[in-house]
């Protein structure tokens, strides 16, 4: 595991290009494009204002920078650095901006969600979509980029419009039986659209591509409902995480729940491996005969090291009592992610914030629990294999795979607090983002013979 040099970053804006060749990062109003392998700066663009959002086009040829305060979007080309494009929403304001799947249209959501303007880079045409819904996840594209589903709100009712991305024609328009639609998401196979309601009402609706309602699922009434939703990569399962601390798995054949995963604070089953992060005090390291974690690689010795210890059942995890009488309480399943091979599901129960639960989807039972010393901020699966990277806002990054787990200290002069991370699409490297910096972590070293990158802090 190698770490690169630390580079400047602002607003956690650091993204790999879809083809995996470039890494874009923002420093205030400048956009820096680096080569992924060498981290050399390939391009440097200057925008008109502080950048709030960057996004690569699907073919990695263009990158957009959105400046919400100014209502501006600037698009840069990698092939032709001198090419420029600027979209000014003016008084309409700008709250969100994204690419269309073909990489030639930009969808701008104006202030107050008045409308969505579809700007084309190929033609002079502009399209407007009225009444978009202001919700958590109102726009979703199919994986093949053919269709876009948009949540709308007309006459105090929720609707969904399906557009054909190639010509922006409206394909289907139907209303949903939701009280207050909170999110929509296509299944990876592009044939089913999952629609879920606000957390005040537990309702998950499944629509076919042609607008037919396939199924409606409601687990319980009155209590706070759906918090997070995730499709399995094969579209076989839909995982619904709710405020009651359970994940319910729906199957694609009957759209009925096949199992539910609870997240109790105590784990009694001895078959479940519980990894607990423990501080490794270097002073006591000599006399410490503690169970040496077989795969825990001691990170480069710096501040406090930590390692994973296997706790024996019954294990009790740290819980967090949510503040009563507040909206959006810190309970329930806040994060859900399937591994790319569909074998595992990683979840986080916000009332047990330090733990990541990994479920075996083949056997539909709990597989591993990882408990960190601080609350888990973010985790993401390796796009190629079942390997999970976790960060807790501390100076370490944690990796889990079925072979074991490891805790790695990020090297650096000062404190590098890993606030977020993102994987390279090949799974070879991992970008670790902190408030003001970022660095790259290379995971497979065999192929990196002779590569030169930032020397200080270079560790093998």
């Amino acid at each position, binding site marked *: 595991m190698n770490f690169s040099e630390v580079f400047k970053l602002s607003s956690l804006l650091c993204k790999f290009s879809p083809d995996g060749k470039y890494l874009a990062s923002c420093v205030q109003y400048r956009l820096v494009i680096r080569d992924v392998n060498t981290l050399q700066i390939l391009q440097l663009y200057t925008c008109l204002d502080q950048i709030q959002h960057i996004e690569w086009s*699907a*073919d990695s040829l*263009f990158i957009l920078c959105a400046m919400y305060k100014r209502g501006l979007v600037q*698009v840069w*080309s990698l092939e032709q650095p*001198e*090419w*420029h*494009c*600027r*979209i*000014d*929403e*003016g*008084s*309409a304001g700008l709250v969100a901006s994204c690419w269309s799947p*073909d*990489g*030639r249209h930009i969808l701008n959501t*104006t202030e*107050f969600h*008045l*409308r969505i303007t579809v*700007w084309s*880079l*190929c*033609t*002079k*045409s*502009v399209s407007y979509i009225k009444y978009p819904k202001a919700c958590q996840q109102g726009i979703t594209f199919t994986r093949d980029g*053919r*269709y876009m589903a948009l949540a709308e*709100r007309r006459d*105090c009712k929720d609707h969904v419009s399906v557009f*054909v991305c190639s*010509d922006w*024609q409206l*394909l*289907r328009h139907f209303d949903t039986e939701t*009280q*207050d639609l909170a999110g929509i998401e296509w299944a990876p*196979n*592009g*044939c089913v659209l999952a629609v879920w309601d606000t957390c005040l009402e537990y309702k998950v609706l499944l629509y*076919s*591509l*042609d607008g037919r309602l396939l199924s409606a699922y409601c687990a319980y009434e*009155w209590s706070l409902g759906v918090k997070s939703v995730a499709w399995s990569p094969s579209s076989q399962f839909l995982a619904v995480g709710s405020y009651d601390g359970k994940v319910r798995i729906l199957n694609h054949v009957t759209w009925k729940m096949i199992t539910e995963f609870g997240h109790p604070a105590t784990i009694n089953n001895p078959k479940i491996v519980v990894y607990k992060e423990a501080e490794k005090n270097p002073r006591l390291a000599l006399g410490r005969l503690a169970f040496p974690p077989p795969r825990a690689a001691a990170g480069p010795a710096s501040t406090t090291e930590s390692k994973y210890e296997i706790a024996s059942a019954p294990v009790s995890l740290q819980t967090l009592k949510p503040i009563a009488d507040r909206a959006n309480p810190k309970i329930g399943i806040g994060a859900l992610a399937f591994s790319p091979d569909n074998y595992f599901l990683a979840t986080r129960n916000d009332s047990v914030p330090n733990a990541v639960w990994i479920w075996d989807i083949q056997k539909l039972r709990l597989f591993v629990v990882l408990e960190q010393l601080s609350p888990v901020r973010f985790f993401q699966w390796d796009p190629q294999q079942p390997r999970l990277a976790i960060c807790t806002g501390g100076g370490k990054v944690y990796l889990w795979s079925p072979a074991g787990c490891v805790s790695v200290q990020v090297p650096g002069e000062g404190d590098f607090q890993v606030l977020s991370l993102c994987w390279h699409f090949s799974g070879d490297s991992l970008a670790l983002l902190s408030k003001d910096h970022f660095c790259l972590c290379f995971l497979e070293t065999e192929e990196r013979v002779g590569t030169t990158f930032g020397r200080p802090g270079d560790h093998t």
Partner: protein
Amino acid sequence: MGEWMTVTDPDLSSESKNICQYTSETKMSPSSLYSQQVLCSSIPLSKNVHSFFSAFCTEENIEQSISYLDQEQLETSRREMIGLQERDRQLQCKNRNLHQLLKNEKDEVQKLQNIIASRATQYNHDMKRKEREYNKLKERLHQLVMNKKDKKIAMEVLNYVGRADGKRGSWRTGKTEARNEDEMYKILLNDYEYRQKQILMENAELKKVLQQMKKEMISLLSPQKQKPRERADDSTGTVISDAEEDAGELSRESMWDLSCETVREQLTNSIRKQWRILKSHVEKLDNQVSKVHLEGFNDEDVISRQDHEQETEKLELEIQQCKEMIKTQQQLLQQQLATACDDDTTSLLRDCYLLEEKERLKEEWSLFKEQKKNFEKERRSFTEAAIRLGLERKAFEEERASWLKQQFLNMTTFDHQNSENMKLFSAFSGSSDRDSLTVHSRPRQKKPHGVSNGSPVCTSKLTKSLPASPSTSDFCQTRSCASEHSSINVLNITPEETKPNPVGREGTNQKWSMASRPGSQEGCHSGRSSTCTNSHVEKDDLP
């Protein structure tokens, strides 16, 4: 030695009773005169009133009888009983309270749910109103923004880029719409087809597995064709015929589309059939195995081992069941016989026996065997004694009456006891029923001096409470004949009042308590816990 005799109801036949006779041989200390408890011999209790009052003690065996009484035991057991009763009452109370609480909670929950529902509707209504207002605002804003469109909102681009796929943009026409629809349906259909393929594959695999199972089952059964054939079973015939059928089926199936409905049904039906045949065959083999050992068929050795184990398991089970049955039957039999002489008597007898054992072991161990032999004789003599007792009772009653008169004159300080004397009377009279009367026929046993009974009527009215000890003690004292051996089994007094169970269950503990001294507080604890020390229990009495 005092003899304790209890007389049964005249309507009860004597032969059905076990009659115990208690003899006291130990000296009774004055201190033990506090209470004299005599274990009531088993009386075949009827639900009717006890009619007889038994004479417990005569003047001679007061001291003796006292020694048999274990006052403390009685007290502790009584206290225990009271405590338990109290606890039971408390728990029942608690239970009721909890039920009430639960009901209240449920009602509250229902109320809260209704409240939530009403609040939700209110909230939705308000939200809709606000949303409409908001929409109006948006429209207005939209208009404003559109007006300013020419000013600022624009896209400035150096040059337009080509499309990603290199084609040129097309106009939006009806044709394109139709094309889009087509594409959409194509995509959906592809997805469905793909899924169907997956499901078909799965089905095919499962069918293969089932067919394999079927084949294996058939092959399992076929080597047995010879043997079962000899037994001429119908199912065996079907086995063969099925095998032939199935063979044909198999070939057919492989040719047909496996998703055919009839084929599927055929497959499942034949699997079921095979399974049934296999099951019955295994059972048959089990039977065969039992014969194998006798007939020594070699072919079945292999199978008989397996079946042997099954068989042994079955046999073990059977053995267990039979054992249990025997046990239960034994118990029932015992119970039956015991209940013939009533629960009270059994328990009394048991308890008597324990106490009796103590005494006997101390003194008359050797006599015990003798007494066993003489039991029958004594039984017979008891009936005679019963008659005698009746007469004696009458005499006793007269004596008592006269004594009471004396007492009334003498006793000025024991006013309250007078009333209790009445109770005592009735207690005595009531208890007479209990003590009926298993008389131990023992040469040494004395027949209890006739304790005159009160009228049978007053027995029924007696309370469970201990007739005031002082009074009873007084009574007993002055009443020489009565005090020594007679005891009041308060519980026995009103069989219909008292719970028959405690009477019966703890019959062993039912004692006749005799207050031996005036003022004795502990005296006359109606004994539940202490057994009569004088009593002998003939083990043989218990059927």
